């Protein structure tokens, strides 16, 4: 089980969270291949992966996580607004 550090609540077990997939999706300029990529393609690297989680049973905030997909180690978590800490 993952131990995930919510930027607001601190380290909590994975069961309090939901995985939200790839972090940042940029809408295309309007061409079909662009839309194909937006709808169906996601990064799927072996190594550090930028994803989002939501603390659904806690503070209900979405936040950024960088996690290594080969070890499951969580390398960093940070707030969506980029601010530090929980203040």
């Amino acid at each position, binding site marked *: 089980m993952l131990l995930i550090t919510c930027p*607001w*609540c*601190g*380290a*909590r*077990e994975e*069961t*309090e969270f939901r995985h939200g997939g790839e972090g940042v999706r940029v809408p295309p300029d309007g061409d079909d291949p662009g839309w194909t990529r937006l709808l169906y393609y996601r990064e799927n690297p072996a190594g550090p992966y930028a994803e989002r989680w939501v603390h659904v*049973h*806690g*503070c*209900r*905030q979405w936040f950024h996580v960088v996690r290594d997909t080969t070890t499951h180690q969580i390398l960093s978590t940070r707030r969506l607004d980029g601010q530090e800490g*929980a*203040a």
Partner: protein
Amino acid sequence: MADGSPLAAHLGALISKASFDDARLTPGARVDLLSVRARRSAVQRVATALGQESLPPPNACRATILGDCFWLRPDEWLFATVPGGAEAAMKTVEPHLLDDGAVIDVSGSRIILELTGPRTRDVLSSCCPLDLDPSVFEPGRCAQSIIGKVSVLLHLVDATPRWHLFVPPSYVDYVVRWLADGIEGARAEQENALATTPHSSPVRMLP
């Protein structure tokens, strides 16, 4: 079980059968509940109006003139005020929000269960993933987490330890069954320890 408790009729027998001296589950006080959602500026005005320096920081609870105030998320706090007190409390808060927030009467959205006794950490650990060790979870802290699969707000009131669990009414049955099971386990463990530890007295024989 307190008379008139909505829990009494339904789960009273289950609760009292499971409870023992070191871990006792009872219905908590009835309260009215207010949700205050506010931007930063309004948060400060509300805090000042309540005579506080600020509203509680993440995962903390503070006593205020409107009752216990819990941090729920960066822009939301929950006030547990006296039964029937919601309207007056709203009138106290509302003028300070201006256009930067909202206060809503959410009374009835959660029921409080009280859990007390020295073995209650073990009981909670059987169904809740929080780290409740006294070194990290002190009186005055609150946290939103799960019991079984259900969201609850958990508040450590004092060092007894005494816990208040805020549970959505439709899930109370489920949560009580989890807790009763944990209490049953703690009690059985205790009885086993008494029966098998050579130095314990009195030695109780199990059938």
